[in-house]
């Protein structure tokens, strides 16, 4: 029989892992976006 506490711990680890991956992807996308915005502003002479 499964230990419910063990199951909860597994679920928590799984949730934390998936949230960390999503957060990392979002931060990576944000860095790329800021880079793009900076290039556009520099080209337009706004920075």
């Amino acid at each position: 029989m499964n230990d419910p506490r063990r199951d909860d711990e597994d679920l928590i680890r799984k949730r934390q892992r998936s949230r960390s991956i999503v957060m990392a992807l979002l931060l990576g996308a944000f860095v790329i976006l800021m880079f793009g915005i900076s290039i556009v502003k520099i080209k337009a002479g706004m920075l």
Partner: protein
Amino acid sequence: MTTVDHPLAIPADWRDFLALTKPRVMTLVVFTGLCGMLAAPQAIDPILGFTAVLCIALGAGAAGALNMWYEADLDAQMKRTRGRPLPAGRMDRQSALHFGVGLAVFSVLLMGLAINLIAAAILTASILFYVIIYTVWLKRRTPQNIVIGGAAGAFPPLIGWAAATGQVTLLPFLLFALVFLWTPPHFWALALFVKTDYANAGVPMLPVVAGERTTRHQIGLYTIPMAAVAVVPWPLGLTGPIYGAVSIVATAFFALLAARVALRMAADGDTMAPEKRLFGYSVAYLFIMFGALVVDRWVA
């Protein structure tokens, strides 16, 4: 009440945070914002344009999250909203509040720093309007809640236009007025066939407070100024003939469906087909109108 007020031991799934942003509502917001931007006379750099639309989407998502945070008790009472992350107990309220506020601040700061201050100011106004004026103040107090609250959903084309040009002129104001006046017939058509749900939750929607007949008349009454605002950009010379022709045909069909709803009364066991048809078409109508505006601008 099934709402959880203390942090759960199990953290919420990222999909639940996504659900807080009301992705389906966001589709229309993003579309009208994008069209407002594309219909503007001044072109915007694609990267800045993408950033502006992203900010509009994030701002709308933040407003949706704060709405769900505040209305968790109400959502728990309605069949349509019972499965949302807060009433279903998959997330604690504090996480929803932090997520909503964080997203709102981030979207406004990014809009202000990357695009311009006017667009950021209108985005701020739209978030505050939806959360404070509509959600907190009006929704539970007056049957006219969605009339004033509808303004929150009318801001995106204004923001898109401001992002592209740095100013607001008559046409974006007319687009604002179109969405503002479209909201009452759109929502009241929905409220007519989900009346029981709203009544059980104690929300003073017009059919609950004033009755079915008044609601039907109000749908008809709001459709008249909406139709005028929808068609008027062409005779004023603000758009070309493509928008003019599409707006006349699409608006005439909207008025026909609205008139059918306005002039009938539901019998026992009624399937509410005309109301469902008006609600369904009202969503398509905005897509048609804004799509025509962009096509008209780009063809011209």
